[in-house]
């Protein structure tokens, strides 16, 4: 194949894109070496690409919030994987028998432990609504959504101690709990004892990670304009576990990492 005339746009583009065979690419290169007009045209096409890409990125450059959609996907995948081929293969009677035996064993162990050793660190997955009804600041949705650093700040040790006392676990090991905000500051929650509660680390199912995922999800809904800020605050303050189930459409929390 030879190019006595100028190269058509399509061929120039295919060459630029690396879509030509080596032989055709060589023919194009040979032609370009001697033809300024085609070289200039090639540059026009490059400029058209760069101009388009810039505008495309500006027009459609959307970003997901960090954890909400990811957490939702993980929750839904967790449900799906429980019914996947592997899981259905595994869920034969022997698996049921093993699970029943494990359950009995666990029950026995717990029974013995409860008789011989009263728990020193009661598990708290959900706050006592009399002690921690939730407290919020008077902030607007735009102000909440404009916040860039949405990580909860550390609760002062003195305030943590007070929370422990209120919950009647002053003697418990403080390392077993995270003093957590009920309504996260990322949703306008206040630095107030009525908004703080001791969340057990040993609450392996409904743990702080699950709550963080819910906070991200609600914030995303609020900032996308799909939920009122007040409603999000109400949902998380009244029963965060129920809110999790509702907004992640799952009965089972997921392990985030």
């Amino acid at each position, binding site marked *: 194949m030879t190019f006595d005339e100028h190269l058509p746009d399509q061929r120039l*583009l295919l060459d630029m894109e690396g879509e030509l065979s080596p032989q055709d690419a060589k023919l194009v290169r040979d032609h370009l070496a001697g033809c300024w007009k085609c070289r200039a045209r090639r540059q026009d096409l490059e400029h058209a690409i760069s*101009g*388009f890409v810039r505008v495309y990125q500006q027009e459609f450059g959307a970003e997901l919030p960090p954890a909400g*959609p990811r957490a939702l996907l993980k929750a839904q995948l967790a449900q*799906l994987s429980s019914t996947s081929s592997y899981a259905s293969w595994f869920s034969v009677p022997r698996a049921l028998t093993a699970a029943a035996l494990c359950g009995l064993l666990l029950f026995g162990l717990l029974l013995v432990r409860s008789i011989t050793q009263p728990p020193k660190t009661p598990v708290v997955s959900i706050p006592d609504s009399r002690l921690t009804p939730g407290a919020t600041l008077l902030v607007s949705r735009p102000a909440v959504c404009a916040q860039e650093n949405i990580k909860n700040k550390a609760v002062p040790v003195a305030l943590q101690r007070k929370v422990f006392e209120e919950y009647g676990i002053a003697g418990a090991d403080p390392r077993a709990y995270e003093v957590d905000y009920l309504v996260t500051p990322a949703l306008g929650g206040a630095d107030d004892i009525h908004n703080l509660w001791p969340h057990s680390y040993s609450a392996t199912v409904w743990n702080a990670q699950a709550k963080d995922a819910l906070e991200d999800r609600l914030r995303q809904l609020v900032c996308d304009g799909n939920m009122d800020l007040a409603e999000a605050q109400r949902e998380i303050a009244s029963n965060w576990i129920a809110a999790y189930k509702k907004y992640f459409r799952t009965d089972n929390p997921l392990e985030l990492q």
Partner: protein
Amino acid sequence: MSSRLTVSTVLPGLRATPATDGNQLAEVVVTFFDQLRDPMLRYLSSFGLTPPDREEILQEVFLSLFQHLDRGKSQDNIRGWLFRVAHNLALKRRYGTRRDLEVQADSGAEDLAIDPAPNPEDQMVNDQMRQRLLAVVDALPEQDRRCLFLRAEGLRYREIAGILDMSLGSVSISLARSLARIARSAER
């Protein structure tokens, strides 16, 4: 990003089969999600879908990927597969509120200036060029626009052909035609 994004590139040594652990598959799917959510969201935005619709489709796409892998189906070029599913779902979902590539005369337009701090004259020139380009792209036939958007996300001609159900030659003609129009608009 490699155009041959496969399960084994995400989790080396793994090839999903119907006997693969569901948790392992979920991990693979989440890794793909992490790598591809931004380009896919941008592509979904180009259909004029609202943010909640885009996110819902994204969830649906990746749940479908889980089922696809769980059934032991083809694991070659997962990226192309994901974009094809997203494209089809977006077409189904798209409704009257399509956000055309129109120049909005609202406050957001200022934020989209190409140069972060151009002088007023440069700003005006940039805006004019941008408006011309947007008008050209908006006037393109739907399929030509789709080819451009997918190519802008790094998909190769063969992948685009697969997603849009076109021949390889048609993709090439479409892109050359669109870029020629864009280049002409820049000359004016």
